[in-house]
């Protein structure tokens, strides 16, 4: 058994211990315990990454997958069985690093943020559960293992969103998150069934091998059988992507993500910004060879959905006033970037730039978005409100947070030399080479990104005077809250300098990333314009923004109402599913089916009541019947004897 399994087992242990005994016996120790286990996992991940990337990962100049742990968990048939194991390849190692690192930061941050919370131990046990599930997801060797941990991250996300369970909005949000992602998981499950049926295996390596080899009978079978004119392979891949889209909050399955901000802010940083929401991207990346080689049509769907979601979310983000919701929409937008980067990518070599860029963006985004959320957490902690209008002029009170937030905003806006620039740059390059329309939408979206991020930044830290009544008693927070912000701020600045293409590519062969400054000019210019607009509108206390908003009128309002997607969902679920399906089903059952059964009972009763009248208890009636009966029998006998 490889020591790698400890990466998974340690958080799991922490979950079990804090979950069962934390509340009673451990109390505040639960936080320390969880943090320690995550730290250990992080250390192991780092050593693994070092070993894999620099020591033994490469075979003949190419990174190959390793399977240090693999055991059969449940056998369906001799071919199909769920194996649980650990898969080590470039993206999983990268994800291990990201998950353990961000999780560690959030754990440390929560030590201060969640202090005094009644269910402190429960909180940490849920965090550990999430870390465990997410790690299990990224190292999955088997598509069913992915599904298992997929569901588990879903439920831990549900538990953490609904952590403040006495708040009705939190309960509703947690429910919504779970059900929407569950709906998407249905697609994932169906996709698994289709893919595994034709490939005859649930192992990623077999699925990829069998579906990318154009001569394999499996691929032939999957392509030749079709449903509604679309081949089974396309169905499978698109359905799997639907699962991924649900988790990654792609349009139209994104509705849960803004609401999910009801959870504690560190949770949002960990789950709804850095790790869980990129699971969909990771899933597509995991099956990327199949998409890219055998079914470009499905990949095109990924690209379109990605770029649309990205632009859509950026537009809405410009109008939101809840700090966390803005961040949520920006997350959605950035994940859209990653998705369409995958969508525009090819397999192997230079064509695989999009894939590399997507993973790179995933990596950098995790860092700066986690930072943004942690900063937002500090701000919320300080003013006890999520609304932008309650903030303003916080620069003096929160100097460190101010700097950190600024760095993160620069990173997300793609200003060189911050990390976001490098990853976004490559995404745009890949899009440019693949599809011009996607490229232009993406560039505009990038400009919008810097606009709404700096709108947020200025509204929080500059605009207006500091709200005195909100003068908080605890200043900028404990050192445990500040340290992660500082570390992440360094990360946001420096992560872009990593030669990512050397490590993570679609085919395992290193790729030299090159920055073409001529090409970069346009995005940088657009981003800077966005920042300037933000300065113009939001730096000082003025009503320019309101004037602009009123000019746009209905467009602004519909954007602010999130384009009425929630209302549509409400309509579909309440009106159609509840009123048109569930209620008739319940009625049908109560009246028709049960009524039918009851009618049988009633009929029997009526029949027996009728006959029971004969059972009158009257001796004369009985004897009369007796005589009549005897006579009848007599006649029958006589007739039979031919005497009559």
């Amino acid at each position: 058994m490889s020591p790698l399994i400890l990466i998974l087992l340690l958080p799991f242990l922490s979950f079990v211990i804090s979950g069962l005994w934390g509340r009673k016996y451990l109390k505040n120790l639960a936080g320390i315990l969880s943090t320690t286990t995550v730290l250990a996992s992080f250390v192991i991940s780092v050593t693994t990454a070092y070993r894999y990337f620099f020591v033994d990962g490469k075979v003949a100049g190419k990174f190959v997958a390793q399977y240090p742990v693999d055991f059969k968990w449940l056998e369906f048939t001799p071919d199909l069985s769920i194996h649980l194991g650990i898969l080590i390849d470039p993206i999983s190692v990268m994800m291990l690093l990201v998950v353990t690192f961000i999780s560690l930061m959030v754990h440390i941050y929560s030590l201060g943020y969640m202090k005094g919370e009644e269910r402190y131990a429960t909180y940490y046990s849920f965090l550990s559960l999430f870390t465990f599930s997410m790690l299990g997801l990224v190292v999955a060797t088997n598509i069913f293992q992915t599904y298992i941990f997929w569901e588990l991250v879903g439920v831990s996300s549900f538990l953490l969103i609904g952590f403040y369970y006495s708040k009705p909005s939190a309960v509703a949000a947690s429910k919504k998150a779970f059900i929407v992602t569950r709906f998407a998981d249905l697609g994932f499950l169906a996709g698994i069934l289709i893919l595994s049926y034709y490939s005859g295996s649930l192992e990623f390596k077999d699925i990829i091998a069998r579906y990318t080899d154009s001569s394999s009978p499996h691929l032939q079978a999957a392509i030749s059988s079709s449903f509604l004119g679309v081949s089974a392979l396309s169905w499978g891949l698109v359905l799997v992507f639907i699962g991924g889209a649900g988790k990654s909050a792609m349009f139209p399955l994104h509705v849960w993500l803004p609401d999910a901000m009801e959870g504690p802010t560190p949770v949002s940083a960990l789950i709804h910004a850095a790790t869980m929401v990129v699971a969909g991207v990771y899933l597509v990346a995991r099956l990327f060879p199949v998409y890219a080689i055998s079914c470009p049509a499905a990949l095109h769907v990924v690209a379109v959905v990605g770029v649309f979601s990205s632009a859509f979310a950026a537009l809405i983000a410009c109008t939101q006033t809840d700090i966390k919701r803005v961040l949520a929409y920006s997350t959605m937008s950035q994940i859209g970037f990653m998705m369409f980067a995958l969508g525009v990518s090819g397999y192997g070599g230079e064509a695989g730039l999009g894939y590399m860029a997507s993973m790179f963006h995933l990596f950098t985004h995790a860092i700066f978005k986690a930072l943004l959320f942690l900063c937002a957490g500090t701000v919320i902690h300080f003013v006890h409100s999520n609304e932008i209008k309650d903030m303003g002029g916080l620069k003096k009170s929160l100097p460190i947070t101010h700097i950190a937030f600024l760095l993160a905003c620069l990173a997300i806006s793609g200003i060189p030399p911050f990390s976001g620039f490098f990853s976004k740059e490559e995404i745009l390059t890949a899009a440019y080479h693949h599809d011009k329309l996607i490229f232009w939408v993406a560039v505009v979206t990038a400009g919008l990104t810097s606009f709404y991020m700096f709108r947020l930044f200025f509204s929080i830290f500059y605009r207006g005077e500091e709200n005195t009544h909100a003068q908080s008693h605890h200043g900028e927070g404990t050192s445990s809250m500040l340290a992660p912000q500082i570390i992440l701020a360094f990360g946001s600045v420096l992560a872009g300098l990593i030669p990512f293409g050397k490590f993570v590519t679609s085919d395992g062969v290193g790729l030299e990333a090159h920055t073409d400054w001529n090409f970069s000019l346009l995005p940088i210019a657009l981003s800077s314009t966005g920042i300037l607009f933000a300065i113009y509108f939001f730096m000082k206390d003025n009503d320019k923004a309101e004037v602009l908003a009123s000019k746009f009128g209905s467009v602004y309002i519909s954007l602010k109402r999130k384009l009425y997607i929630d209302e549509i969902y409400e309509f579909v679920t309440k009106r159609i599913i509840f009123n048109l399906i569930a209620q008739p089903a319940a009625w049908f059952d109560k009246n028709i089916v049960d009524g039918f059964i009851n009618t049988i009972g009633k009929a029997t009763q009526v029949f027996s009541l009728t006959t029971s009248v004969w059972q009158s208890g009257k001796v004369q009636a009985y004897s009369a019947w007796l005589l009549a009966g005897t006579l009848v029998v007599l006649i029958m006998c006589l007739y039979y004897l031919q005497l009559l």
Partner: protein
Amino acid sequence: MMDASVISFYVISAFLLTFGLMAVTAKKIFRSAIWLLFSLVGIASLYFWMDLQFLAAVQIIVYIGGIVVLIIFSIFLTQDSGSALPRAIKSRKIGAALLSVFGFGIIATLLARTAFVETTTPMDVEMKTIGFKMLSLGGDGYALPFELVSILLLAAMIGCIVIAVKNIPGKP
């Protein structure tokens, strides 16, 4: 060839059937009992007509002297003897009448179709013969039934006393 004995048979038959019918239709219970008495007398006369003096005597003693008197006593004990009886529902009367007529019809038809082999040998109905047979233990003797009937009568007597004497709950 209508001699007196033939005529008397029909007269007796008509007598007993008429009074039987009146006994079951009379509106007052006491009269009903009296009509029953007449009908039983008619049956006794039928026995006389058949030269069965002993049986006729028993009929008169036990039925008329015993049972009918018993019935009359019980009527006195339980009823206003003059009061009219509760009347049965008409439909029930019709039903019963139909059933009876129908049953009579069937049996009568059946009897009419049966050829009985009649003999004219006279019966030995001497008291002496009856007495011997009643008490003899042999193959055609009736000692055993006789004893059984005596036990039955004893049991009936005891039973009557027990039933009649039993205390009614609530009354001393």
